[in-house]
């Protein structure tokens, strides 16, 4: 029985990782860059939630909307100010810039809110008792909302005009431009969607542990990136699969005492093993370098 509840916890954790991983994978597929600062957008979202649920307004639903809005604006600003001037620069330069943006967001948060963790309680949940099985309501909510968001995103990308433009740009930027697609606009939209997903993920992160500090996003961000690479970076279903695998593995590692303190090491070891066996990830396409 306890295996089932661990599985449900793992699935809901996996849904959070998948939401974050989608932001990484979409940006990587379309702008061909690793947005190292993506995890810190979650942290910014959690602070917006903190300000609007604990200090002013005190309406959690409005706070979630405002957090999404704020993160979208932030993501677009970062894209336009820091990443756009480097379009066409070597990938090493872009990656270092992204690391810089991550440092910047963390240090600004530290200057404004200090390093002391802040309590953010949005809703009160009860656990469900079912045949001697205790299931947390927030896990179910995370799982359901996460699935709805992912289905909506898949439909959006595959059916809408903008979504197809995104697919085209990720396939071949030059050809997409020749077909009349506004590449810069598509990249900005991708960043906006990724940041909105990160804001949703920040709500779920606060369900799991209702405190936030300036490094809240760093570790989940890196783990979600591991999930994205695991599933094959650039592939949207890959990010979802990778996120779920990572969440389940992590929850099962945490369940057993002798493995619990190694859970981070296990997650990263899986990444290295998968990349050694299949460098393009589970669903990734192998790209041949051309001269």
């Amino acid at each position, binding site marked *: 029985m306890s295996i089932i509840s661990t599985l449900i916890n793992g699935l809901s954790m996996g849904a959070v990782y998948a939401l974050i991983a989608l932001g990484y994978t979409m940006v990587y597929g379309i702008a061909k860059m690793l947005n190292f600062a993506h995890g810190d957008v979650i942290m910014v979202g959690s602070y917006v939630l903190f300000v609007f649920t604990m200090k002013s307004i005190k309406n959690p639903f409005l706070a979630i909307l405002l957090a999404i809005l704020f993160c979208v604006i932030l993501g677009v600003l970062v894209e336009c100010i820091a990443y756009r001037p*480097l379009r066409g620069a070597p990938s090493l330069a872009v990656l270092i810039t992204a690391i810089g943006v991550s440092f910047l967001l963390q*240090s600004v948060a530290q200057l404004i809110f200090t*390093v002391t963790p802040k309590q953010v309680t949005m809703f009160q949940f009860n656990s469900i008792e079912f045949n001697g099985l205790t299931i947390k309501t927030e896990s179910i909510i995370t799982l359901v909302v996460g699935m709805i968001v992912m289905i909506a995103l898949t439909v959006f990308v595959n059916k809408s005009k903008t979504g197809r433009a995104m697919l085209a740009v990720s396939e071949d930027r030059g050809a997409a431009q020749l077909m009349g697609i506004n590449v810069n606009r598509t990249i900005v939209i991708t960043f906006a969607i990724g940041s909105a997903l990160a804001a949703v993920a920040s709500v779920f992160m606060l369900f799991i542990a209702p405190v936030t500090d300036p490094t809240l996003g760093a570790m989940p961000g*890196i783990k979600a990136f591991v999930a994205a690479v695991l599933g094959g970076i650039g592939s949207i279903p890959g990010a979802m699969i990778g996120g779920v695998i990572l969440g389940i593995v992590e929850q099962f590692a945490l369940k057993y005492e002798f493995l619990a*303190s190694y859970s981070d090491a296990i997650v990263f070891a899986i990444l290295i093993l998968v990349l050694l066996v299949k460098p393009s990830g589970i669903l990734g396409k192998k790209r041949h370098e051309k001269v």
Partner: protein
Amino acid sequence: MKSKKNFDWKTLLLGNKSYLLVAFITIVTGVLVGVGVITKRTPIITPDLLTQIAYTMIMVVSLNLVVGFLGELSLGHAGFMYIGAYVAGLTLYYTHSLIPFGLLRFLIAMLLGGLAAMLFGFIVGLPALRLRGDYLAIVTLAFGEIVRGVLKNITVGDMIKNPAVGFNIKDLTTSYSKYLFLIAFILVIVTIFCVQNIAKSKHGRAITAIKDNEIAARSMGVNITYYKLIVFAIAAFFAGVAGAIFANYTTVAPAIFDYNYSIEFLVMVVLGGMGSVFGSLISSIIIVFLNVQLRSLLTGNLAGLKNLVYALILIIMMIINASPKFVTLREKMNWSYVKSKLQSKKEKS
């Protein structure tokens, strides 16, 4: 035979500003400490600060070999340093009753630490053969976190009872701890010697060729497997050596060697200029000095300002150095470009 005769030690050692800089620092500070002008209580410069500068220099120069010369991003350099510090610490702890000479003990510990890190550098170099760019960067980051995640759980006999807090072997180094910074600076010179000679040799040209275009380099007959592995192993060896110095100087704890520490070294490489050994040395001095000064100046929550400055350095340096628009602008602002324009104008008139 002819080339051997032309081998000129004078230009090799004296015609190079990196050696001059480090030798100057070593001699001046060595004399000042020996005379007693610099002590633990001196404001601004202390032997501890000099030790910090020295091991940071070794870290940054060796990271520059990977990032600047080979062109691969490594975010796990602090992980190699941790391995070096750990192995060197264990060696020092378990040999201090066996080997009577402090300096000999230190050398053995340093070599073992370096070799252990080198072994792991070789292992991390293996995925580097199949992965490129961003993927490799994340694998090196994962490696550093694995090292931390494993070592924080292992207790070792009497020495490491509480692995999360780490260990401190400063009591065992009293016979040479006053002059630790001198040993460290001599090791900096050894590092510079190795890195510069690799960079200037035919091996260095092969490594640079891999950075510029891997496929072209391979088609010219460069053995990519060999060079990638060897660069990762050498850089890791020196990171291990820096770790050994670190273990002699302060507490070795898992919380120190996280990926932010690796990024700090990356900031210094970028600030000094990728591929420039002299630049690495200068930026290590500046950043370590600022770090120590700011640490006492900005306490508590203002400490975030330090990272804010790092972040701005990284972003602004990258945009100015690598942005296609700025590169053309810089070419136009270049003094020699303006000069040649003026000259051609003169010739016309």
